């Protein structure tokens, strides 16, 4: 009984989230009043203006290196940090040498 109730509650929450997050019926936030959809869903803008504004015919590269350049910068930083962390964790520690 408790399990059924829990599952039903989860389903209800999921349904509420689906309605709230849906573009046609959900809450509207961000810029723009009536034109909120234009500012929130920018994919068509990238497809229409990417070649003329950035120049690459590969729209994904246009987005990654121009429109979302800071994201790529952070991604490169994450890669560097991961390698630095791997080397710092894997290298022989002083305690290991004492034990041997």
């Amino acid at each position: 009984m408790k399990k059924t109730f829990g599952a039903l509650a989860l389903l209800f929450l999921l349904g509420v989230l689906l309605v709230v997050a849906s573009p046609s019926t959900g809450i509207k936030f961000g810029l723009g009043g009536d034109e909120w959809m234009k500012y929130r869903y920018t994919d068509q803008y990238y497809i229409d203006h990417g070649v003329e504004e950035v120049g690459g015919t590969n729209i994904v590269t246009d987005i990654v290196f121009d429109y979302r350049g800071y994201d790529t910068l952070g991604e490169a930083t994450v890669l560097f940090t991961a390698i630095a962390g791997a080397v710092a964790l894997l290298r022989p520690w002083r305690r290991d040498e004492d034990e041997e």
Partner: protein
Amino acid sequence: MGLIVKTTARATIPLIGIFGAYVVSHGHLTPGGGFQGGATIAGAGILFLIAFGFGEMKKRYDHHLYSALEGLGGLVFLGIAMLGMGVAFFYNTLWHSGPFFNGQPGTLLSAGYLPVMNLAVGLKVFAGLVSAMVAIAAYGRWRE
């Protein structure tokens, strides 16, 4: 590894490298880009490491060279992004009013800083992934 693996690796490593270089250099035209191509070339390096063993890799892997290459990739990325500083960070000034890399869209020498950035990111990812694999192989704690 055995003879079959070594021979296969000898045959396929150059092809993998060429394919990765193609993915990097055509990153602004066809699917792919710096990250994916760099990972492909790093896959060639990892295949070398697995097929020929760590002893052979240690002879050919120079730690200072690879850390310099990774730093160079990151600095070129940032420096190219700084070029358009008159308008904004990451502004593609080479494409709008640059002396080069502003050809017809769809040709190799077009798209402003995108090819240079692809090369820089590819270099960075290749050097980083190969360094990570060599570090994992060098400091392995599972032997004995």
